[in-house]
């Protein structure tokens, strides 16, 4: 099953490689990974999406907790959480009809066109991963020049917070 794990990590050199190294050493998979400093510059927040049986997910969270640089973590699947991903897609956009259709689809998906040339658009979009996947599918591989995605970010609903 797919799990999203949010981790507060010491913002020090090498901390990220400890997390990544743990996954490769123990043959766990990382589906996506995003990391950036928080409001406290000594702390990074890392959001990691992985898949595995319940036993494997339990081991993953325990092993992560064992890393000395991990301050706290939470498996977002254990509560109600909001997940978002940012994507930018560069698409071929030639001819009035095609350009109009692309703009319309982008609009339906809540995307914005942030760069325009005579033959291309860049569409910026946020949403959960399924929505972004659906947009890519809708546009079709033939028209896509390049895709860049941030990886998943997640946060618990309500007042409960993950803090150092």
């Amino acid at each position, binding site marked *: 099953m797919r799990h999203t794990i949010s981790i507060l990590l010491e913002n020090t050199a*090498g901390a990220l490689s400890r997390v990544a*190294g743990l996954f490769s*050493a123990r043959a766990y998979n990382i589906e996506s990974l995003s990391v950036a400093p928080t409001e406290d510059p000594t702390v990074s927040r890392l959001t990691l999406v992985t898949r595995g049986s319940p*036993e494997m997910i339990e081991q993953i969270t325990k092993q992560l*907790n*064992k890393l*000395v*640089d*991990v301050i706290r973590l939470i498996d977002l699947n254990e509560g109600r959480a909001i997940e978002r991903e940012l994507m930018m897609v560069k698409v071929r956009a030639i001819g009035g009809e095609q350009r109009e259709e692309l703009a319309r689809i982008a609009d339906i998906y809540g995307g914005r066109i942030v760069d325009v040339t005579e033959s291309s658009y860049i569409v910026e979009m946020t949403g959960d991963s399924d929505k972004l996947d659906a947009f890519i599918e809708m546009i079709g591989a033939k028209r896509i020049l390049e895709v860049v995605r941030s990886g998943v970010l997640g946060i618990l609903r309500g007042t409960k917070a993950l803090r150092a």
Partner: protein
Amino acid sequence: MSETLRGAEIFVRALIDEGVEFLFGYPGGAVLHIYDELYKQDTIKHILVRHEQGATHAADGYARATGKPGVVLVTSGPGATNAVTGIATAYMDSIPMVVFTGQVPTHLIGNDAFQEVDSIGITRPCVKHNFLVERVEDLAVTIKKAFYVATSGRPGPVVVDIPKDVTANTTEYVYPETVDIRSYKPNTRGHPGQIKKAAQLIMGAERPMIYTGGGVVIDNAANELTQFARLLGYPVTNTLMGLGAYPATDPQFIGMLGMHGTYESNMAMHHCDVLIAIGARFDDRVTGDLAKFCPYAKIVHIDIDPASISKNVRVDVPIVGGVNNVLSELNRQLQEAHVKPVDRDTNAWWKQIRDWQKLDCLRYDKTSKLIKPQAVIESLWRETGGDAYVTSDVGQHQMWAAQYYKFDQPRRWINSGGLGTMGFGLPAAMGVQLAFPDSQVACVTGEASFVMCVQELSTCLQYDLPIKIVSLNNRYMGMVRQWQEFFYDRRYSHSYMDALPDFVKLAEAFGHVGMRIEKPEDVDGALHEAFSMKKRLVLMDFITDQSENVYPMIAAGKGQHEMHLAPGTETDRELA
């Protein structure tokens, strides 16, 4: 009062303030400032090894025997990479160790400088934690943190990488009394509710089994374990790492368990209804096929590492906490409940165990004209009164030592259990002998393992370490040969030891005493003579029966009750 010191001085002062007795090391370019400071003092005894692997194993042996952290200093590049095997060995067995590696100056890091290697990157998967010290201001506090992390919680090796310029720069020296790491708070107190639940389950058992591992040794909980087992009168088995935590000569002890465990221990594991796992981690060498593991048991698992719980085997009552604390609390509750030990003469479970014991699974041919390796270990046990520190290398000799030397005390049996590192025995024995100069220290080895760190014989001469090396020489990598005999149709691919040295001359060339023993009737006398030479290292080359195998044996993929027994063992009984 603080003073301004150079990094190298800070290093030495911090180690002194930390109470470090021995520093196992080997100099090189990146650590020359530090070696210059070591030259100027005599509080810390530096032990010059002959290879960095030897330094790590020696520090490891010291740590296992004393419970104090082992400390190592090596240079950058090859110094660090040579230390990796020893670091990984300590990591797998949760041994507290602090390894300082020199590093090229900070401005050269990443430049492929001479003797540069990414020590942090290389050691990351086999350390509990590691630190790169980027500024001299961070040096003292990092050393404090390193010792704290290495020795607390589930212990393990910590690497501190120190660039050369950090040892040259100056700052004010203050060694912190304590450190607080917000992201590292090991939990040593077991959950009271869980302990209560465990006590109920334990007291209600009909076919109980106490299975304990290295955690009991590491947490100095042998007395608590012994009290616990005696309050209940339950049978006890130890893992390879746990030997000595419960007295092996006690009637409640039914031998080691696992791949080469006793028939009675493995059978009792298979048939028990309550399994009490203490400081053990359900390693594959213990469990055999997980699908067949302890099919009738409710399992209580006490361990300081939450990640060890339900990793391989689902447990019913997990207790995260220090083994010592949790056992003390359990003992208190058992005493409050006025629990009576089961009567070993009348209890049906004990009768069953006694019946399994009648198989005498560790029996071997005592009439052979060849030296039986088991006989050498039994003779060693008698000669040393069962009271020696015994280190070992890895292979058949290790298993025989574990099976036939009856350890009555913890920290006496010192071997590389998790990583299985050949070459461990001799340097580990150096660490033990340095810690306990007046104690008997034996290194049980084989002719293949022994030569892997043979260079340390020089270190032994330099520091007058009268280690007694018991080499079971069968002219094979015995355990490899055994597997090839069983599972590869006797195709002995590269498992023989051709072109062996003359070990007597080899010992003499290094300035020690060598003996070759070829007849069974000479074994006792040779050991007695060797141990009478209290000041000398003696290498005893026992020419043993080449065909001997380690029994019982659970083959890979088999259940605990599916053992190979020694040929000639009574086989008319139902093994399953």
